[in-house]
């Protein structure tokens, strides 16, 4: 008999065999649920009810011709809840892989050739599902990071009222185009809302002022000016002053101050507000406990 015909003879039985093998695993999963589930629970160290949900979803998925949508949904939920409890994604994946061990014990006891063959298929399936928990963990993380970046953008640019008609923006950290946009919008809106005519942009928290940052600052000041407000830039520390001069950036007629206090004093003077020191001496009372 020519050798080349062998695959043709063997192939159909193989698929039939594979089908039988899958069915055998399915039967085992269904019949031995009472044995497998507690065993899986012991190996995985994950909440029993969530494992049961995944298990049942897996069974009903098999019934509908390997439709694993529901299983994936349950796994994503498991991945999320475990991440919240501080488990690593490896822990979660390992918990899923634990089902292989639990099922293998049953397969071994069953001892049929179908079950053993089916286990290879089952184990590949569980590997995929384990990796899926990893993926959903990563995408959940990604979403958190994106949300936080957005929140940070909002949080890091407060506009505070210093005095009637005087607002201040304390800038902290890196000033890129996106943040400057937010700062500018917020500042201009606050000027309108508060009817303020004076604004202080404090850059004490900005570690380095390069040409881009300077350009963003200048644009913000000019935009405020167009609205009839006067801006002062404060928080220029010695090293920043040095660098700005060396770079050759000119701030033109924009008033700059070393500290926020200087800027406030300047603004108050501009508004004609005088602050005088009280003449009455202040008495500090201190008590000591022995």
């Amino acid at each position, binding site marked *: 008999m020519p050798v080349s015909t062998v695959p043709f003879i063997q192939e159909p039985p193989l698929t039939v065999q594979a089908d039988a093998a899958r069915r055998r695993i399915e039967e085992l999963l269904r019949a031995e649920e009472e044995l497998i589930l507690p065993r899986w629970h012991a190996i995985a160290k994950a909440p029993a009810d969530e494992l049961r949900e995944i298990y049942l979803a897996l069974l009903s998925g098999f019934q509908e011709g390997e439709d694993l949508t529901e299983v994936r949904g349950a796994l994503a939920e498991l991945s999320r809840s475990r991440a919240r409890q501080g488990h690593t994604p490896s822990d979660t994946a390992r918990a899923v892989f634990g089902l292989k061990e639990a099922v293998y014990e049953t397969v071994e006891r069953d001892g049929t050739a179908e079950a053993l063959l089916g286990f290879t298929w089952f184990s590949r399936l569980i590997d995929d599902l384990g990796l899926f928990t990893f993926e959903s963990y990563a995408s959940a993380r990604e979403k958190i990071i994106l949300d936080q970046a957005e929140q940070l953008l909002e949080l890091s640019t407060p506009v505070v009222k210093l005095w009637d008609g005087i607002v201040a923006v304390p800038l902290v950290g890196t000033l*890129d185009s996106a943040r400057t946009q937010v700062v500018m919008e917020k500042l201009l809106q606050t000027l309108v809302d508060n009817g303020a005519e004076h604004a202080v942009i404090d850059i004490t928290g900005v*570690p*380095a002022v*390069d*040409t881009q940052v300077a350009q963003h600052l200048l644009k913000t000041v000019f935009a405020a000016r167009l609205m009839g407000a006067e801006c002062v830039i404060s928080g220029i520390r010695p*090293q920043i002053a*040095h*660098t700005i001069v060396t*770079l*050759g950036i000119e701030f033109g007629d924009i008033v700059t101050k070393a500290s926020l206090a200087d800027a406030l004093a300047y603004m108050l003077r501009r508004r004609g507000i005088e602050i005088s020191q009280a003449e009455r001496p202040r008495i500090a009372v201190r008590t000591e406990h022995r």
Partner: protein
Amino acid sequence: MTGDGPLPIVSNADIVAVRQQVRTAAVESGFSLIDQTKVVTAASELARNALVYAGGGQVRIEVVENARRRGLRLEFHDEGPGIPDVEQALTDGWTTGSGLGLGLSGSRRLVDEFDLDSVPGKGTTVTVTKWAR
């Protein structure tokens, strides 16, 4: 810091990372606060140039030493369009983009040694050195 290989510059976040790395290296090399700020600002300018005008590049940060003092050498390299007229590019206020036109000329003033090597169509390498005082 040295021997870590070049840092990539492909996004705005990378410019922030370059600044942070250069600041760490400057602190370790004993730079004064003013010199730290200067070299960090120069790094920021040159990294942004690589990103904006060449679409990205890389930087190698090296701690160098001569007989008397320690310094920091930064080598920015990109494979962008290159600079056709270096003289003009180093003029204050000249820009082909939308910036202030002070990045390149300003960085030259911020550091002690400045070397610009550009081949039109091939790319640009800017090497700067700043010595601790």
